[in-house]
Each structure stands twice: as structure tokens, then as C-alpha cells.
């Protein structure tokens, strides 16, 4: 019980301390690059995109990427341990890839891969 409490107090304390200390001690000189989103997304703009909502194309591609990314994450350890997993591992992995492939086919047929 006590270690958890200590850990919690330390965690909360560190977060609060960092925020306060940062805002007090740090110099405040802003420029365009500093105000942009950090490493992701499209340019923020004051109005919605040409009077419409944001285009979702970028997100769609990002999501597709994540799907295949996760597939690789599964495939890599499987490939490493292939010999030990044997036939069972092969069948299960084929089923998994098939399921992902069905989704891929869906995205392709419904125009998810066309940029315009």
C-alpha cells in the first residue's frame, strides 16, 4: 500500500512541479514554427477548409497505415518463432492475414485509396 501512495505522490508532484516550473522559468518567445502542431496532422487554419469540414483523406491513409503496421508487428515475432509454432501458427496467421485482406479489398473497392 505505502509504495503505491509514495509513487502516486511523486508522480503527481513531478507533473505539477514541471508545469509550474516551466511556465515560471522558461523564456517566452513565440514564432510560427513553435506554434504548429508537433510532428503530425495538417496545418491548423482559423476557418474550416474552404468553408467545408476538414478533408478526411489524410486520416484515412493514416489509418490504413496503422492497420498494416499492426499486421507487421504480429508477423515479425511469428516469423522469428516460425519453427516452434509449426502448422498451428501458419494456419492462424493465414486466417489473420485473410481477415486483414478482406478489409483491404473493401477499402480498395469503395474508393478509399483514391486521393481525389
Amino acid at each position, binding site marked *: *500500500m505505502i509504495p*503505491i501512495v509514495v509513487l502516486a505522490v511523486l508522480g503527481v508532484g513531478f507533473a505539477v512541479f514541471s508545469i509550474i516550473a516551466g511556465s515560471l522559468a522558461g523564456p517566452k518567445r513565440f514564432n510560427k514554427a513553435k506554434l504548429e502542431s508537433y510532428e503530425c496532422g495538417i496545418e491548423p487554419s482559423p476557418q474550416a477548409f474552404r468553408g*467545408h*469540414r476538414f478533408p*478526411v483523406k489524410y486520416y484515412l491513409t493514416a489509418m490504413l497505415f496503422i492497420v498494416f503496421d499492426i499486421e507487421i508487428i504480429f508477423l515479425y515475432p511469428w516469423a522469428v*518463432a516460425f519453427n*516452434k*509454432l*509449426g*502448422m*498451428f*501458427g501458419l494456419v492462424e496467421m493465414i486466417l489473420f492475414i485473410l*481477415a486483414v485482406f*478482406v*478489409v483491404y*479489398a*473493401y477499402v*480498395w*473497392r*469503395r474508393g478509399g485509396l483514391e486521393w481525389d
Partner: protein
Amino acid sequence: MSDFHSPSIAYTALAPMLCIGAAAIVGVLIDAFVPRALRWSAQIAAALLGLVGALIAVAVLAGTHTVTADTALSIDGPTLFLQGTIAVLGIGSVLLVADRSPALDGGAFAAQAASTPGSADERAGIQAGRIQTEVFPLLMFAVLGMMIFPASNDLLVLFVSLEVLSLPLYLLCGLARRRRLLSQEAAVKYFLLGAFSSAFFLYGLALLYGYAGTVSLSGIQAATLTGQHNDTLLFLGLGLLSVGMLFKIGAAPFHNWVPDVYHGAPTPITAFMASATKVAAFGALLRVFYVSFAGLGWEWRPAAWGVAILTMVVGSLFAVTQTDVKRMLAYSSVAHAGFILVGVIALNRSGLSGSLFYLLTYSLTTVGAFGVLTLVRDPDGEATHLSRWAGLGRRSPVIGSVFALFLLALAGIPLTSGFTGKFAVFSAGVSGGATPLVIVGVITSAIAAFFYIRVIVMMFFAEPVADGPIVATPGGATAASIAMAVAVTIVLGVFPQPILDMANHAAPFYH
């Protein structure tokens, strides 16, 4: 890694889930390859085939007791009872979803979910008679999650199935054809709060793993019996895990989303959520508490009593002032969650079988009640405001009587299924030593009966409103779904014995 052995998987025992999964994937392929004109009917066929197949598989499997997939899934009496129930509810909901008869103005779902509400795109889509056919695969994926949920014999599978059932539901909530902003708001709310509760669940899972060193329910049970571990981790973990499941069943104080989401979602989806989700989540809750934590009954009972009492009181009290029939039914579903919790807390065999029976009766009646809601319509969609229902029973006696029957069943009037269910759960509560809880249950049932009967009085004794809503003649699908609910409500009220026996034989859990 050196001691890896392939888990044995009893594919026949998983047949119900495989049927549903296959139907869902076929649904995705239909959307990809079948021409637009045929898509809607092909989707209906695939979904119904999958559900009927699953139901048949459940029937064939009856009596199976097995733990498979390396203790991840337990196929036993309660699992099969609940999977059968979910399959039947799935059929009822798919029928409600499928109805696109002209009287219902082209169905309940958006022409294209991505088009901006009120835009020219939307109008064009509606004029072309389009509809979002992805409803069916999404629904089937949700059913898949619900089928795995009560079968899960370890916490990780429990979490995965929770997500599998939740994610499609978030989407489905946002697909209403009319009042789309309300529907999208409901979807976002449900998603945010659902994610929040999943986080609790996951944290609880992690703490329990820290406690027991395993995620399997039997392993946790074994750890609680030795009593040589850190209790604080156990109870923190149990509490946070419960939050995730209590959220899904809509128990207070985790019920806030229920009225808003039920109200905003397309009514067939509301019917599905209020019935099938509740059945699945209660199945999981029952398994977790009856398998892993039964030995700790004295420790968790006080908290569970608090939740049950709060749920019953909040559900029935808030329902009284609702002026919208859909919201009223939402609160009533909260109250019913409280009543079923009485069966969970009983922590004995009759509590389990009573809860199973209650889930079956309540959920089918609910599907029927929401089915009727889809039929009472104004020019701009369903007329759910209570004042619009005045005199409805006089103008269309059949629909009025059917709805009155459902309300009486929800109120637990004898000779309807609701009475039998309530009786089973409450008598289990008394035998499980929860008499004060049962007393609260009976009092809140009386309060609840008041608002159900108020609707009946409105329908049959108030003067009909001028320019009142039209009662649409149901298409075959909706009619079939409602007729099924009526039949079950009456038969299980008058002649409940076979199903009661079935629920009795289903208990206890096998792990």
C-alpha cells in the same frame, strides 16, 4: 519460448461465434463487390443466415461443457444460453434494421454517414434512395463481440471482446437518417465515455494481473483462495474492472450515457443496444463474479449493494419525469439493470439461472417495445414525445395494445414474462440473503409501474391529439420482429416452465 505448445482449439464448440464472424466478413465482402442495387438484400440474407446458423449451432451444442483455446474461452451452460439469447435478439434487431418499407420513409439509417447534415450531398443521397449498407457487417461484428464476451474465461479475451462489441456500436449510433446531429452527438458521447470506461477496465485488469500473476479467471480464483497475495491490489483491481462492466450494463453511477445515447441512436440500434449489449455484459459480469470472486462475496457485497440500490432508485425515479418515450425506456433499462444485479448479488445457483431468465425476457420485450417506437411517426421521423402519444390506443388499438403489453411486461405484471423474470430474480435474492435489496427492488418496481402505466393511460384514456402522429403499417420485417417479442412475452408469462428449466440446467459456470 522453448516450452511453447500449440493450444488446442475445439472449433465445433466455437461454431456459434465462427458463424457470426463468417457472416460479418461476408458482409464486408458484399459491400466491396456486390452491385449497389443488390447490396441491401444480400446483406440482410448474409446477416440472417449467420444468426440462424449460430442459433442452430447453439442448439446442437446444448449440454457442452468445455474450456478451449488454452483456457481462454469456456463453452458451458450459461455461455450457450446467453449466446442463444443474443442470436435471437440479433435476429430481432436485424429485422428492425432491415425494414425499409415506404411507411418508414426509407429506413432508419443515413444515406451516407460521411455527408454533412443538411448539405446538398445528403439530400441527393436520400433522393437517390441510398442507405449505408455497412450497418449489417457492423452489427454482426458487434454480435460477434457479444458472443465472445460471456464466454471469455480470461481477462484479456474479456477486454478484446469488450472492444469488439463496443467499436461497431459507437459507429452505429451515429448513423441515424433523421435528426443526424443528435445521433452524431450520441455517438461521440458514447465513444468518449466508453473509451474512458475501457481505460478503467484495462487498469483493473493490470492490477489483477499484478495480484494473481495470471489473467485467467480460474487462476485469479485460485489466488484469492490462498490469500497470500496483496489484497489492496486485488480490491483496487476488482473495483476498476467492475467499472468497465457496470458501464456497459448501464448501472448507476455509470449510467449517464444511457438516456442520451439511447435517445440519439437510430431506434433499431437502440433496441439492439438495450437488449443484446445488456445480455452480453451481464453474462460477463456474472462469470467474473461467480468464477473469480465468489469466495470474496462478503467483501464486495456492500459495494455491490450500493450500486444495485442506486441503480434501481435512479432508474425508476428519473424515468418518472421523462416526457419522451424513448428516454423513458432508456431509464427503465437502467432500472432493470438494477433488478438483474439483485440476481447477481444473490451469488447462488438460482441467482444465476434467475438472471439468465430475466435477461431473456427483458431483452426480448425491449426489442419489441423499441420496434413499436419505429412505427409511430410524424412527418419528420418518429414521434417520441409522450404528449404525441395521447389517444394513440384509441386510434390504432392493435399497436396500442401491443405496446401496452410490453409496458406491462416491463412493469412485471403477472401473466407476462416480466413477472416471471422478476419473481425468479427476487426469490433468488431472498434465498441469497439479500432481502433488504429485494424490498428496495419491489418498491422501485412499484414506482416504475407508475410511469409505464401512465403511458398506457395516455394511450387509451386521453383524447387523441389533433394532427397526431401516423401509426405506420409495419413492413413484414418489423412486424415479424414485434410478433416474435409479443409471442415470447406472453408465452414466458403463462407457460415459462421449459425455459425456466433450461436456465436452471444452464447453471453453474464451468471453468
